[in-house]
């Protein structure tokens, strides 16, 4: 409960500071938009000029859908990116102050989980409208299309929320790695980049080689970007939302359980080491 209240405070503070530092917010959004635009151009080039220009459609994803997908990744990046870590938590781990957190009457894993979610919601809420608007107002073929249907929108929104939880659980594992202060930073970074790659932030998973599709669909991180966005662009029917949620929930349970246990182990390890 106190974790939730603390998270609400964090969210509010984030909103205030983001609005206050308007230049930073604008710069962040411009960078996002630039990044999205470049990726859109790259993917468009292949769809239009590639030797097998129908290779995308045959994989079940049309050019229009792919472009929308790329934009949506940029819209959601502040919410779902695996590589954004909370500086305060990092600093606590680095300085060994996590030991002090143990004195507080709350579960550290739950606390960090809630904090991670809160620090992502703030920037997202401020970015979502401008970036979506810019992406939708661009001329064809660069623009982000509206959702395939109202059902597609609603089902993808529910899946995005689950995606956020999945993302927080994945980032929680990254924090656990970081708690191995002696060597954890390198493996942690590799892990977070891996989250981004396998969640479809680099390329829609449908455009990966055909032989890898079954694996890609069923690995833990597909539920972060890829599956919710398939619902939005319409490569998955809204009626399949239950299957998507089932995959997400299954992995969420696994990641939370593993993360929670691993954090307990890492904490005792830290205490023994003297922080």
């Amino acid at each position: 409960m106190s974790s939730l209240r603390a998270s609400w405070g964090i969210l509010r503070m984030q909103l205030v500071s983001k609005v206050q530092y308007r230049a930073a917010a604008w710069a962040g959004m411009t960078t996002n938009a630039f990044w999205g635009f470049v990726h859109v151009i790259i993917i468009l080039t292949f769809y239009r000029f590639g030797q097998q220009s129908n290779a995308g459609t045959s994989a079940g994803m049309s050019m229009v859908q792919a472009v929308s997908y790329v934009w949506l990744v940029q819209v959601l990046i502040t919410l779902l990116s695996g590589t954004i870590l909370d500086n305060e938590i990092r600093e606590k781990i680095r300085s060994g102050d996590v030991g002090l957190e143990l004195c507080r009457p709350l579960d550290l894993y739950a606390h960090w989980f809630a904090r991670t979610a809160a620090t992502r919601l703030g920037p997202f809420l401020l970015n979502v409208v401008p970036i979506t608007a810019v992406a939708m107002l661009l001329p064809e073929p660069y623009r982000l299309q509206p959702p395939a249907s109202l059902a597609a929108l609603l089902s993808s929104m529910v899946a995005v929320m689950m995606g956020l939880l999945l993302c927080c659980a994945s980032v929680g594992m990254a924090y656990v790695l970081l708690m191995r202060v002696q060597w954890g930073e390198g493996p942690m970074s590799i892990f977070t980049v891996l989250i981004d790659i396998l969640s479809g932030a680099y390329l829609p998973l449908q455009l990966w080689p055909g032989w890898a599709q079954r694996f890609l669909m069923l690995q833990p991180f597909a539920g972060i970007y890829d599956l919710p966005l398939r619902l939005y662009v319409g490569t998955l029917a809204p009626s399949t939302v239950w299957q998507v949620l089932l995959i997400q929930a299954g992995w969420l349970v696994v990641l939370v359980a593993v993360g929670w246990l691993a954090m307990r182990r890492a904490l005792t390890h830290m205490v023994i080491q003297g922080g």
Partner: protein
Amino acid sequence: MNDFMLYTRYLRINFLAGLQYKGWPMQILMVLFIVVTDPLGVVLLFSRFGSIGEWSVERTMLVYGIALTAFGLAELFSRGYDAFPWQIRTGAFDRMLLRPRSTIVQVLGMRFHLHRLSRVAGGSCIIWWSLARQGVSLGLLGLVQLLFALVGGYLVYTGVFIASSAVAFWTIEALNWVYIFTNGSYQVTKCPPQLLPGWLRNSFTFFMPMFVFSYYPAAAICGWGEVPVGLGWLALPAGAAFIAVAFALWRVGVRFYASTGS
């Protein structure tokens, strides 16, 4: 002791400091992983869609590899300027002003991490791979041209770092912008330059001359015949001009700092 020697001493002490952290081999692996996986998306696209006209994956990767290696060199040897904007509020620049040396050498020497070598190594491998796959043998002239391209690129990226550090004297709020010209810039090379929108191609040719040190030399070395071969030699002068402008901005920033403090 002259400034260059002093710079090497700075590198030495930072190198020694880096070795104190036991996780440094892991850090090297980490950057290598990031470098290797960054072009994953475009490589997968090539494998699904095939080449884009003349532009095969090898050709694209050569331009990308040159830009990446140049950026890696700047990160390796000019990392101090890259990190400077985030140091300024800590009073780090005050300390530099208190030392009887050029502030430029001091900022350059402020940071040096061995694991930044990974990007240079990864980029060089990409260049080597794509040249080998295209069956291009460099020859002395080509090698010189390639080296000039990398040095020119190094100057340009260092110039970007210096310019952003100069802006940091006024504000660090909007500094996210700089990603467009650092990590963002070489993303642009994943697409054949002719197929880019004109304003984007021109920005990265005339404003920040990224294509001048990556695409032009690559085309000249491999004889793609898309641009005049002479343009392949422009990398070094373009880099020098770019960094000169950046330095001028830096000077103005230093003067502004002296009148306002941190």
